[in-house]
């Protein structure tokens, strides 16, 4: 099944979604036998795993192991790169690769934060309410309220409250990344995907992002790709180790880093490769 075009990305009423999610199931994400191909490259080879609701799950592994590709299948960002996807991916109770799925609505429920901060060249305020405006919300009071709440949630409000209408590009890298998190939170997603969110930041900014991830835990199911194993230890409840497109091992973070079941996991976390 190719997912090149967004022709099916027409909005449908979200009833179908809310019916599925009324009682939060134990697993927000459940993947079975997932294969992803880019042309002739077999990027993911039969991944099966479950991600617990309200927890932070870290995906670790050397570069090119498929962890980012996996993350991008969870909100169908792979559609952009002409990836061919096989297997079943259930997010919030819905098989997101079924043809009836509304990709736009999926992405409203599954937010994403990228490796390098990518604010729009617009004001701080307009960045935060970007998603709301696309939802057709025009009421200035609602927009202002959501902007304030989202910025507070992303621990950025105190730093920007007096200059909401300045360009987002005047912010520091760390502030920009928290703005991108605030922007994602404004849509009230259930799941937050983070693709190495701190890799472009200095240690102080990284610490702030990590603190933020821990604060958000519980309210959101967070999946974070990271190169930094200490970071995985610090922020995550569970960790999955990827290697060459395969899931080698997934366990509670403590178990994976202290008593890895697989030899390759042990080699990787002890720094023998990667």
């Amino acid at each position, binding site marked *: 099944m190719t997912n090149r075009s967004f022709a099916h990305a027409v909005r449908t009423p979200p009833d179908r979604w809310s019916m599925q999610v009324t009682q939060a199931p134990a697993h927000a994400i459940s993947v079975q036998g997932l294969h992803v191909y880019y042309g002739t490259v077999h990027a993911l080879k039969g991944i099966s795993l479950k991600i617990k609701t309200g927890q932070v799950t870290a995906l670790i592994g050397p570069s090119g192991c498929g962890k980012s590709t996996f993350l991008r299948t969870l909100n169908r*960002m792979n559609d952009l790169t002409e990836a061919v996807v096989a297997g079943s991916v259930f997010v919030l109770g819905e098989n997101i690769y079924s043809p009836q799925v509304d990709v*736009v609505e999926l992405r409203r429920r599954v937010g994403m934060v990228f490796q390098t901060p990518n604010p*729009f*060249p*617009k004001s701080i305020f307009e960045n935060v309410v*970007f998603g709301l405006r696309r*939802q057709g919300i025009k009421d200035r009071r609602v927009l202002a309220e959501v902007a304030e709440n989202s910025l507070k949630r992303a621990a950025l409000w105190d730093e920007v409250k007096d200059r909401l209408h*300045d*360009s987002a590009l005047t912010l520091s890298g760390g502030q920009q990344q928290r703005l991108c998190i605030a922007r994602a939170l404004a849509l009230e997603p259930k799941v937050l995907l983070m693709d190495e969110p701190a890799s472009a930041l200095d240690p102080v900014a990284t610490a702030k992002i990590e603190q933020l991830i821990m604060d958000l835990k519980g309210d959101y199911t967070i999946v974070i790709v990271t190169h930094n194993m200490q970071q995985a230890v610090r922020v995550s409840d569970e960790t999955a180790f990827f290697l060459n497109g395969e899931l080698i091992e997934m366990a509670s973070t403590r178990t994976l880093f202290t008593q890895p079941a697989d030899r390759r996991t042990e080699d990787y976390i002890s720094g023998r490769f990667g």
Partner: protein
Amino acid sequence: MTSHAATEKSRSRPAPPSPQDIRRKHVGDALFRGITALAAASVLALAAIYVVQMALNSWEAVRHFGWSFVVGTTWDPVFEEFGALPVIWGTVISSLLALLIAVPISLGVSIYLTEIAGRRIRRIIEFLIEILASIPSVVYGLWGIFVLVPLVRSIQPHLTSWFGFLPLFQGPPFGYGMLTAGIILAIMILPIMTSLTREALHAVPNHQREASLALASTRWEMIRHAVLPYNKSGIIAAIVLGLGRALGETMAVTMVIGNQPTISTSLFMPAQTIASLIANEFAEASSSLYLSVLIELGLLLFGITLLLNVGARLLVNRISHAGGRRR
């Protein structure tokens, strides 16, 4: 062997640099700087020579007519009565008409090429655009005479019968006129505008597209709210370049516009542009006043182009500041 190497070594040991040595190192740089500065200065010099020469040669007309040249509406070489307003009107309106037609099309083509088309189709269309850009102006003019003029002539009665209450669509069906000139100009500026707009959209980094899609926008919303605003200045630059071309285009316009320096509210009436008028009447300019008038027209065209360019620059600056862009 070893002793030989040692003497060699001592001979080649560098002496402490004297001030002269330091200076000599920079001679190449200074020379290079001088040459490039000269090249840059030649642009300035050319513009200055152009303006001064034009001003000198048009002095007779400027003195003779003063401001009434710019606002006068009669063009009568026989009685040496020259008012340039009709040709200024013709130049500006035909160019704006061309933009009106060409901007949406070039934007549409560029969006299709950068955001939607597959690699194969993109290659083919880009190749065709380059081909279109290399067709000589006179050939466009011929095509205008044999295809576009009859087409406009046959369409006009219908437009007149539907929208005849608007002055825009009144008048006899000549086929030659403002609308035909506008369409020809639009076709002629389309390739350059499309390839520049495409470049501008291509320069929008993918992370901006991803950011927009990740915030639950449809593909159209992504284009409209993330891709297009990101490089507004590039798109405006493309439009300005197209406008510049349209203002100065001579051959094709003169072949289809009808060559009558009159101001009309109808799109179908013949008109005249500055460039087209100069090309038409230069050979017949018998008196020195007449010649001087034509040269003043050239100066005027230069002024109009300058004005529109400066205006567009200001617009770009304002937009990029309003967009919160940091430069």
